[in-house]
């Protein structure tokens, strides 16, 4: 029995057509060895594709940014997917054609476009938090400055002691002469 040989690779790559394709499929239906070999080649091809797909995903940056937002559960978690599982259900098991969705369409592009909205929301939050921080710092600075003078919480009147008046009163009681003002000489005239 002649096996498919190098035609298996062409079959997996979708390079056979017409009578060649019909013959190859008919052989696969009756030859378990070639079927097993074809299955191995498909698996190898999926693994290689998955490797290239992971590194070339344009939505990766967006997903990473989206992870900082509150909708974190919506972000894909690559570590939970095994290589090859990402598009496995979309690949035919037996027709050998690559049915991977083209880039820019389907779930891939949709997933890549989604993080744009959380990024805007995050910037809004940054602005909000910055404004709140500035307000708190401003009020705190003002309160710190205003709270530094005087002993009571209430502002109270600003007092400049009337030393002249006090000095005369003190002289009345102490039997001494009134003392002068700090800035200029003072006199006192008293009468009964």
């Amino acid at each position, binding site marked *: 029995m002649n096996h498919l040989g190098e035609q298996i690779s062409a079959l997996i790559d979708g390079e056979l057509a017409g009578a060649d394709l019909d013959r190859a499929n008919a052989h696969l239906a009756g030859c378990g060895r070639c079927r097993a070999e074809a299955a191995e080649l498909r698996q190898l091809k999926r693994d290689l594709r998955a490797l290239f797909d992971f590194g070339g995903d344009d939505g990766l940056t967006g997903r990473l940014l989206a992870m900082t937002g509150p909708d974190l559960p919506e972000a894909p978690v690559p570590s939970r997917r095994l290589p090859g599982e990402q598009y496995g259900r979309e690949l035919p098991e037996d027709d050998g054609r690559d049915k991977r969705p083209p880039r820019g369409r389907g779930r891939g592009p949709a997933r890549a476009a989604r993080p744009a909205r959380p990024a805007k929301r995050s910037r809004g939050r940054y602005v909000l938090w910055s404004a709140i921080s500035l307000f708190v710092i401003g009020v705190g600075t003002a*309160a710190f*400055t205003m709270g530094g003078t005087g002993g009571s919480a209430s502002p109270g009147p600003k007092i400049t002691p009337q030393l002249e008046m006090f000095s005369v009163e003190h002289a009345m009681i102490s*039997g001494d002469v009134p003392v002068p003002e700090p*800035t200029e000489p003072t006199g006192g005239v008293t009468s009964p």
Partner: protein
Amino acid sequence: MMPALPLVRRPRLGLLIAAAVTITVPSLLAILALVGHEQPAPVVRASGTSLGGGSPPSGLGMRLLGKSAAAGTAASYQGVELIAQRSVSGPQTIVSEVWHRGGLTVTQTSDAGMLASSQPYVSYDVSDRSPEGVFGLTKTLVALLGKHYVAVYQGTGLAAGRPALIVELNRPDGSLAARFWLDKQTMVPLRRDVYDTSARLVSEEAFVQVQFGVLAPAPTVAATVTAPAGSQWAAAPAPAVLVTELNRVGWQLPAALPGGLPLYTAARSQTGAGQVVDLCYSDGLSVVSLFVQRGTLAPKPAGWQQVSAGGHQVYVAGQSVIWSGGGFVYTMLADASPQVVTQVVAALPQDTAPGVIERIRRGLERLGAIVDPFR
């Protein structure tokens, strides 16, 4: 031999009796003299806080001081006083021209260091009270002296070129507290020296020129000056009760001051900034007037010097000290040693530097008070 013995013993017995009389009689006289002397009695009086108030001071020294206090009110005199004293801000010298007759006293006081550059400033007090004495000798203060000091007459001397009687005031421990020179003719005080507990001279007040009897007319400045606003004081009949009542509504007024200065008089007055309370504390020699009013101290007033006293920052000018604490402004005028002034400042409320949290909390309350239209 036996009859001769009495002949020998009789002269010895007489000699013994004569010796005993010679020793005993002067000793008794000395003891009686000491008991009758004035000094031991005041020691007993001054040592006790148990002395009842109102008992007139006995002893020659106290009697002389009492007469001097009365003479300072009754006599007519004019002269120039020189007052040199140590304060918390350093030494201060004041020159004062004094004219006194018939209950009217005119003083024109200048700081000796400013005479060359400043014009004299004269004020007129319209209250019905006037200084009762000279150099701190008033009837009230002499009564307090009798409770805290021992007065001893020390003889005669000279002051302002006039014969004077010298009276010393001693503390209960015997240390010298003050020395007075009283005019021998009129009994008006001519000079007073005050010493602190370390025997250092803290103040010296003296007439450098004085004239008694017929005086020149009162200085013409008396007719031109005007009364300072708000100089009407209402004396409190019971100072201790006033202090208690005000403390009940948030004031922080002491019932006594450190240095053994009890409260002895109080008065109130209304000013544009609110009520002012004047509390006077004295032991008869040191006199501290404490003026308290609500509010906070205005920014540093011109002419005042900021110093640290009693562990706190205060402003001083001569014997005057101002600071704020607990929502009140305190102005202290003290005829007392710097040591006593420092103790008093330390014992009264002060504004201390608050912590960060306390400072922010206080500032938020003040901000709230500003923006709250209902406050």
